[in-house]
């Protein structure tokens, strides 16, 4: 099981087929947007220095398909002792497009003796017409020790939602958001190809970042680029003081 997950983390065979068909279109388009706008380019395919989670990249590009994926990362860091660990839960869902899409999922939860500091998913995916890309990342960093958290920086919805359709085609929060080398880079060069109102809905919920445990999220870039596609992607990153265990509900038994 661990071997399977390790493979998924660094090279997902499912991604290969889609990337063959879409690399030129997806990355070319996004790089072009990046050059024109100053956005830092897609980094999902770059080898990260620290452990990363990669899934749902370059998939479901036939048309009328849905890719619904989410990643939940819990990091534990003790600044005094250096003790680290992380738990990663992934949901990897695929199926036909719809409202909601009828997908089937593979769920996986694993623990690691390392921090997981990067999440890359749903890039260059859903490139056939009428597809749905629905992806989310939730990161919780439990930190023991003194740290300072500031608002996470965001680069999203740049060069997206073009190609026609009734405005607004973008429903992004925050927007505009074009910080270079941001904590969260998502939904850039996506939803280009016409289609419905609000077809690119991307949000970054209340999120923080700390230099004690920097993380990055790259998702939903260069995705959903055909007519009638939708891209819905969200991110949440929290840094909290460890040891403040939540009060667990007492059920009636």
């Amino acid at each position, binding site marked *: 099981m661990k071997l399977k997950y390790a493979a998924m983390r660094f090279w997902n065979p499912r991604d290969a087929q889609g990337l063959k068909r879409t690399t030129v279109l997806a990355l070319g388009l996004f790089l072009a947007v990046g050059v024109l706008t100053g956005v830092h380019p897609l980094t999902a395919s770059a080898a990260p220095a620290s452990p990363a989670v990669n899934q749902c990249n370059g998939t479901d590009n036939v048309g009328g398909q849905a890719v*619904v994926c*989410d990643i*939940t990362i819990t990091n534990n860091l003790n600044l005094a002792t250096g003790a680290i660990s992380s738990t990663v839960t992934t*949901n990897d*869902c695929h199926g036909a497009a719809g409202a*909601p*899409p*009828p*997908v*089937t*999922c593979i*769920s996986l939860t694993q623990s690691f003796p390392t921090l997981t500091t990067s999440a890359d998913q749903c890039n260059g995916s859903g490139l056939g017409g009428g597809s749905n890309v*629905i992806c*989310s990342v*939730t990161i*919780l960093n439990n930190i023991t020790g003194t740290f300072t958290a500031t608002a996470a920086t965001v680069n999203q919805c740049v060069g997206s939602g073009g190609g026609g359709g009734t405005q607004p085609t973008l*429903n992004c*929060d925050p927007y505009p958001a074009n910080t270079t080398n941001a904590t969260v880079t998502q939904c850039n060069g996506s939803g280009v190809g016409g289609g419905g109102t609000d077809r690119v*809905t991307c*949000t970054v*919920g*209340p999120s923080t970042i700390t230099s004690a445990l920097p993380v990055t999220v790259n998702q939903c870039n260069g995705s959903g680029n055909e007519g009638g596609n939708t891209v*819905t992607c*969200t991110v*949440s990153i*929290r840094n*909290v003081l460890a040891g403040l265990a*939540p*009060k*667990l*509900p*007492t*059920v*009636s*038994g």
Partner: protein
Amino acid sequence: MPESRRWFLIAGFVIVVTGLGIGFTAVASTPHAVSGSVKPSSRSSIAATPSAPAGHVYTRPDAATLAKLPDANYNAVISGLLDAAGSASLPLRSETFTLKTELTPLYGADRSGVPVASLPFLNFLGSRTVVVPVVLNDGGWTQILTPSRRELPSGSGTGVAASQTMAWVRTDQLVAGAPVQQHVLVNVSKQSLSIVNTADGVVTATYSVGVGKADTATPVGLTYLEARYRDPKQEAGHQIYLTGAHSSVADHPFGPDQGLVGIHWNAVNTGAVSHACIRLNAAGDNAMSKLADGTRVLVVK
């Protein structure tokens, strides 16, 4: 034809035509009356609560207002929430959502009024709050199941309180999550729990369960898997699948919290043995572990 009789016929024709016109105008101006009298659907009965008036422009409350609202968590009692009893008769939906902002205002029957509570972006575990819709996008509003109680059984006047609550939220405050394809069907009298494919109704597995005792009965109706956690102090550390339901007949049937109905393993897992919870054997526990938060749980008598 005598002139007087001709005028009588003309007057009668005018009266009839005028009456028909008035009647048609009245019907055309009250479309709800037509749909309600001809084909009352279960959905319309749920949506029959007063809604936002036509032309009402929604304004999101400011941060200060939101911060003053009660937090609709599992341990709150918020009278403005709605009784979700009628939602059990609606077709089960498969959508799940999460929230867009730190605090999302919840509205009761009067959607044009002030919010009655707020729902936080993250739940008590620090995980993203999962939202389960009952009525989707009715004029920009979605009705969702909520984690809190609306009243205590002892304060209801009848000794029976709503086990599951719901509220209205603005649809644009929701973010689409992974849909769920299966639901849980608990039959209290048969003391069974089944996993059902929602689309076609096919039962994929059934397990025997323990249910509530006579005086702490497991409440019936629609609820959902709100969160899951392990607590060494409860159920020997087995996973607890917390639902949004609360005991409808006892304020605190066990422990200090609000009569929370969980689904969980217990060594005594057959018969009417619990304080409202649904007790699983090992096989049932394993099956439940494969279901996502947001999965609907339908409890029937």
